[in-house]
């Protein structure tokens, strides 16, 4: 009998298996390598010989891999201690282990790119090769990044409570990277955030999960078949994933009812208001502006105020939007694009076309550059007609 190994299910066992090894006395870096080896072996062996207890199998194999590696090591004293020490069975507090792993992999001593890579490997169970492909870097580079990250956190005690906010920032970064190669990073971020939400009761974790679900629901509508961007107002709302939206809204409402507002809940609320509008014209921009006000209060971020200017332009007219924009630094990313949009709404097509072309020059990626150039072209074509 051969069956495909359910890779996502297999990977979901990674954090609890790793947690058990660490609790048995393995150091984090070696335990993490051993768990990776066990995952690779599972993919090889399980199709012909599926285990009855998948997690038990992984723990046994990973522990054996760990002991083999330790034996091969020159650290003899440590080896003898560990070989004598038979693994204690008994219930392992797996939820806490999972949570501790998130904290460790998002430790403030790590750079964002290291924290992302370590989280995807140690919590997500992805291989170094998969992570390297997803971030378009050579595998050797990613391997170095991960082993450096493991060294950085090697002295962190595993039972130290961490800061949920740092974990959320890492998961948000993974989500925003979208997808390239075989691994869908957005879907992986949702899976990891869902797993985190099961391990800790925290309104901002719920807020981030809701935000991801609401954005992910629009993914199919966000790009045209030729790969070009479709702005929110022009998206075919029939292609939005209503199941994902319903789940996001439900999670968000439960979080908001706790009355401990945070930036992810506020962002999710804005996404929910967009998702709720049957057509772009029916969007409740007044409420969206109110949420941007909350968000600006919570984060003090100029990017938030830039987005707020767009919402003000919709709620109170383009002149009001331009007034809100006027107080912001025009070096902000996407400032020219927002200004172009508001000037077009205000009927000043010449200024709008010039600003779209300028925005295209500053675009952070090719898809946006093409989109903004097309906007400039559209207005120039209309003006010369």
């Amino acid at each position, binding site marked *: 009998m051969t069956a495909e190994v359910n890779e996502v299910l297999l990977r979901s066992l990674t954090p609890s298996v790793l947690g058990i090894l660490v609790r048995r006395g393995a150091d984090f870096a070696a335990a993490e390598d051993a768990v990776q080896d066990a995952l690779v072996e599972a993919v090889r062996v399980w199709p012909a010989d599926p285990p009855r207890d998948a997690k038990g199998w992984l723990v046994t194999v990973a522990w054996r891999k760990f002991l083999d590696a330790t034996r091969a090591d020159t650290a003899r004293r440590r080896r003898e201690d560990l070989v004598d020490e038979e693994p204690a069975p008994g219930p392992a507090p797996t939820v806490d282990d999972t949570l501790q792993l998130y904290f460790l992999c998002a430790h403030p001593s790590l750079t964002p790119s290291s924290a992302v890579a370590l989280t995807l490997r140690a919590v997500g169970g992805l291989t170094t090769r998969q992570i390297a492909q997803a971030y378009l870097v050579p595998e050797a580079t990613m391997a170095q990044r991960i082993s450096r990250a493991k060294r950085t956190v090697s002295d962190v005690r595993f039972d130290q409570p961490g800061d949920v906010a740092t974990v959320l920032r890492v998961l948000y970064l993974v989500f925003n990277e979208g997808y390239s190669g075989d691994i869908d990073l957005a879907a992986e971020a949702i899976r990891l955030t869902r797993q985190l939400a099961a391990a800790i009761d925290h309104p901002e974790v719920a807020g981030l999960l809701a935000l991801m679900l609401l954005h992910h629901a629009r993914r199919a509508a966000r790009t045209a078949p*030729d790969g070009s961007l479709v702005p929110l107002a022009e998206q075919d709302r029939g292609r939005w994933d209503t199941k994902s939206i319903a789940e996001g809204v439900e999670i968000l409402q439960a979080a908001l009812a706790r009355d401990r507002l945070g930036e992810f809940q506020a962002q999710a609320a804005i996404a929910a208001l967009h998702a709720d509008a049957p057509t772009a014209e029916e969007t409740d921009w007044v409420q969206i502006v109110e949420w941007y006000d909350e968000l600006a209060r919570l984060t003090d971020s100029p990017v938030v105020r830039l987005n707020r200017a767009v919402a003000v332009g919709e709620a109170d007219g383009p002149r009001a939007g331009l007034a809100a924009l006027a107080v912001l630094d025009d070096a902000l990313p996407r400032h020219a694009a927002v200004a172009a949009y508001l000037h077009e709404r205000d009927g000043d097509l010449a200024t709008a*076309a010039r600003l779209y*072309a300028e925005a295209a020059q500053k675009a952070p990626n090719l898809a946006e550059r093409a989109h903004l150039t097309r906007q400039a072209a559209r207005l120039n074509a209309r003006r010369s007609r």
Partner: protein
Amino acid sequence: MAKYLLLKHYRGAPAAVNDVPMDQWKPEEITAHVQYMNDFAARLEKTGEFVDGQALSPEGTFVRYDGEGRPPVTDGPFAETKDLIAGWMVIDVDSYERAVELAGELSAAPGAGGKPIHEWLELRPFYGVQPTVTE
């Protein structure tokens, strides 16, 4: 096999035949152009000749060392006269003739009026490896 770098310039190459700034094209002409570029890369992947392709933002800075204990000196944005690379594609092909053929195809990407841009691309051979058999 030999590797070649195909360089596309924002500025600095001789003027293209169909030299109209992109924001003066029709929107559908831009779409057609992007599609052509994507198809070209996909086709080279299929023939086993594609190595890498990247696009660069027109913004940038010159940087140089300024001595022990001092921050590097930066100079930018680039002057209007600077030769400015827009992007590259690395191909691995059997001959110089094949490299020229492919560069020619890339230069035929459609532009304003749906007509080929006839853009000048820079074709640069990589230094090869020391051969194993030397005599």
